[in-house]
């Protein structure tokens, strides 16, 4: 009886180690989002009025670095730290990317935030954004509820 318990304990410890690293990457990601002001409602308004290059610079250079990184990972067959081959699931096209994309674009311009920035904005002390986040969770739920009836 003792052995399964200890195995369970071990996997619990492994889990914590595994999750803490994502927490850490999240913290860094959050700091970058705040310090680059991409979570600022004002910066988003500026972007959608073509009044500044800032947001385009951030997103554009992030994509370039991402493309090069993914290319290097594939080219040199880089493994994860656990030695697993890296696999990225391809995205398949459906009409949701058009309809959902437009709807999210509306929300992005209104709230000045995509989902990531919502969490960061709350952290910076804009507590009322909790309401926006709860509403976003509700929006996700309503999508799940009506999913079968929506064009995809």
């Amino acid at each position, binding site marked *: 009886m003792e052995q399964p318990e200890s195995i369970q304990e071990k996997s619990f410890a492994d889990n914590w180690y595994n999750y803490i690293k994502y927490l850490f990457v*999240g913290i860094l990601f959050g700091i970058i989002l*705040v310090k680059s002001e991409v979570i600022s409602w004002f910066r988003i308004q500026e972007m959608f009025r073509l009044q500044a290059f800032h947001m385009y610079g951030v997103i554009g250079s992030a994509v370039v670095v991402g493309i090069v990184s993914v290319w290097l990972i594939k080219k040199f067959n880089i493994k994860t730290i656990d030695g697993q081959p890296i696999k990225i699931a391809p995205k398949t096209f459906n009409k949701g990317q058009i309809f959902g994309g*437009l709807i999210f674009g509306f929300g992005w311009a209104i709230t000045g935030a995509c*989902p*990531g920035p919502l969490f960061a904005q709350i952290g910076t002390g804009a507590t009322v954004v909790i309401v926006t*986040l709860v509403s976003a969770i509700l929006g996700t739920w309503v999508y799940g509820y009506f999913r079968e009836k929506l064009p995809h």
Partner: protein
Amino acid sequence: MLEFLKQPWPWYIAGPLIGLTVPALLILGNKPLGVSSSLRHICASCIPSGIQFFKYDWKKEKWNLFFVFGIFLGGIISVQFLSNPEAVRVNPKLVKELASYGITDYSNMVPGDIINWHSLWTLKGFFLMIVGGFLVGFGTRYAGGCTSGHAIMGLSNLQFPSLIATTCFMIGGFTMANLILPYILLH
């Protein structure tokens, strides 16, 4: 060094760092960058309500919840230790336009004049916070991703559907910010 970190970070520093999140998550554990899925996991864990879309093993995706909790902590750390007292500096044209809607407070990430607890039950506040949030949650899930999942992760992997999604994000944003939102902010 700390003084340097406290300044707003230029795009050519912040952008590449955001881009590096993609290989970091892949190498740490084969995880694709994405934030909006966390909203689905929250639904699946708290309010699944028997809906097919929320019937999956969300515990396997727990890493994503740790990641977004980290983003929240990152916000706290930025304000506590890395904040600079100056307000965000934006294009004077925008300052002028926003002033005509009564928006003059640039001290926070969101305009305190219109996005605050008090204005939540006004029509404008309801639209900005509740309707806006709803569209973000509904739209990202319908599109299968957000700015991080499609625009950064999807484009990094040269996914055509992500290019379509990103283009639609921008079309939606341009339409709202220029044609619809000014009308709402005026009232």
